[in-house]
């Protein structure tokens, strides 16, 4: 999925990354890099300014045919949705808050903003850690065995355990820790066409008029499909045939059909070209 640089020692559940010349780990990493790239302060303006690029990088990622971890993709989607909301709000004629939806939007923005700042704080501290660790690496502690005449002074050691307790302790130590995640490395990612997914969404939305992201993806067999549907939704949004709203931050993403009753909906196939240098796509 990447050069593997961010996960050199992580063999399972390697983090989800997005390309932008470098490798990004998570949406905040990407956002902060975009903001830095444009020499913007971390502000609301910055957030809405980098929205397009943020979405573009999610697209580029999906084009790479990479596998998506649902837990990680979710974060990207949450952030992408919030950014889109912000951008939409800025396109409105006034910045006045006059209904609950606007309030929710403001709250979502503040939350995103706060999380971004918090993440940045830890990122900065991590740099201090790195500097300290490398300064410390040149020093080696004296850690030597006791001089023999001193070792002889040591009192008889007390185990404090009987054989049974000792065996129980050994069993506990020798039992492998439960592996918290299931590797999906053995799964091949099937090719998924965003255009096809868009067609499915158009059918579903024409039928139901309104729906939620959850419902629209309820039949998805895997994270890749969920992502493809999300990207398809973004495409449909760009075509002006759907609108989104989200009552509470991170709450259900509602999708409303605003397009025509029938006819072709033009969704580009920019996602569906040949996968770029994909290593894990069997094609």
């Amino acid at each position, binding site marked *: 999925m990447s050069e593997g640089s*961010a*996960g*050199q*020692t*992580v*063999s*399972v*559940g*390697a*983090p*989800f990354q997005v390309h932008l010349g470098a490798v990004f*780990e*998570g*949406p*905040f*990493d990407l956002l902060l890099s975009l903001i830095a790239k444009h020499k913007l302060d971390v502000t609301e303006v910055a957030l809405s300014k980098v929205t397009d690029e943020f979405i573009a990088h999610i697209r580029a990622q999906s084009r790479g045919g990479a596998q998506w*971890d649902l*837990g*990680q993709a*979710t*974060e990207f989607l*949450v*952030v992408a949705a919030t950014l889109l909301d912000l951008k939409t709000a800025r396109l409105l004629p006034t910045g006045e808050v006059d209904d609950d939806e606007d309030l929710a939007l403001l709250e979502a923005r503040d*939350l995103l903003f*706060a*999380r971004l*700042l*918090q*993440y*940045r*704080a*830890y*990122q*900065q*501290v*991590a*740099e*201090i*850690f*790195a500097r*300290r*660790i490398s*300064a*410390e*690496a*040149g*020093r*080696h*502690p*004296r*850690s*030597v*065995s*006791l*001089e023999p005449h*001193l070792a002889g002074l040591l009192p008889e050691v007390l185990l404090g355990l009987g054989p049974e307790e000792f065996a129980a302790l050994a069993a506990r130590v020798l039992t492998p820790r439960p592996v*918290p*995640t299931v590797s999906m490395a053995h799964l091949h990612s099937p090719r998924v066409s965003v255009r096809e997914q868009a067609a499915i969404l158009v059918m579903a939305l024409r039928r139901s008029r309104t729906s939620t992201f959850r419902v629209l993806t309820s039949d998805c067999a895997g994270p890749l499909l969920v992502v493809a549907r999300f990207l398809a939704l973004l495409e449909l949004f760009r075509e002006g045939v759907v609108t989104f709203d989200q009552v509470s*931050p*991170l709450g259900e993403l509602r999708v409303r059909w605003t397009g025509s009753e029938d006819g072709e909906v033009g969704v580009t196939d920019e996602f569906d070209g040949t996968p770029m240098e994909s290593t894990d796509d069997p094609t």
Partner: protein
Amino acid sequence: MTRPDPDLPADPDLPADPDLPEQDVPVAAGSGDEPSLAAALEAILMVVDEPVGEVLLAQVTERPTAEVLAALHGLAADYDRAGRGFELRPVAGGWRFYSRATCAAYVERFVLDGQQARLTHAALETLAVVAYRQPVSRARVSAIRGVNVDGVMRTLMSRGLVEEAGSDRESGALLYRTTVHFLERLGLRGVDELPELAPFLPDLTGLDERLDAIDETTAAP
């Protein structure tokens, strides 16, 4: 190898080098056979294989802790001033002799495990969150970093930088904290010596509650 130096038979009575500038060090007590406090501390620290706190050193030497602490700082400054190849430092809750960083190139030809694998950005950031939030659940760390941290946490645990710290009373989630080895790797006396996070962080009151909500959303298996 054609150096002009002969293979000098070691001189058993090698005279004290008159040029040595360190003759005024306060180590020698001068009071007969009884070694000075500084010498006693040096001797003890020669045989330890983990950092030793000043309180224990005060007990063993039967001197006030403040006096012991002053002597330790005095020795450390003395070694620094003389540019000795070793230094005495308070790390991870106690004092310990270290080789000086400027001599690392020589020492590392002996200490094989000297080169530890570098930590990735992901690992460093995760470590930072654990360090400042400990004890903390994996889900919380994930929420703060915006990515799944399972793999990175495993790496940090296998490197001995992070360890389990019981489980959360309410949620039952496993909690994690940094280890003594973490302090040693960073050369810190204790977690309280970590740089302040505040200058980097605006007031984020209430953020944790929001993150908990996110935990529930995204941490679902």
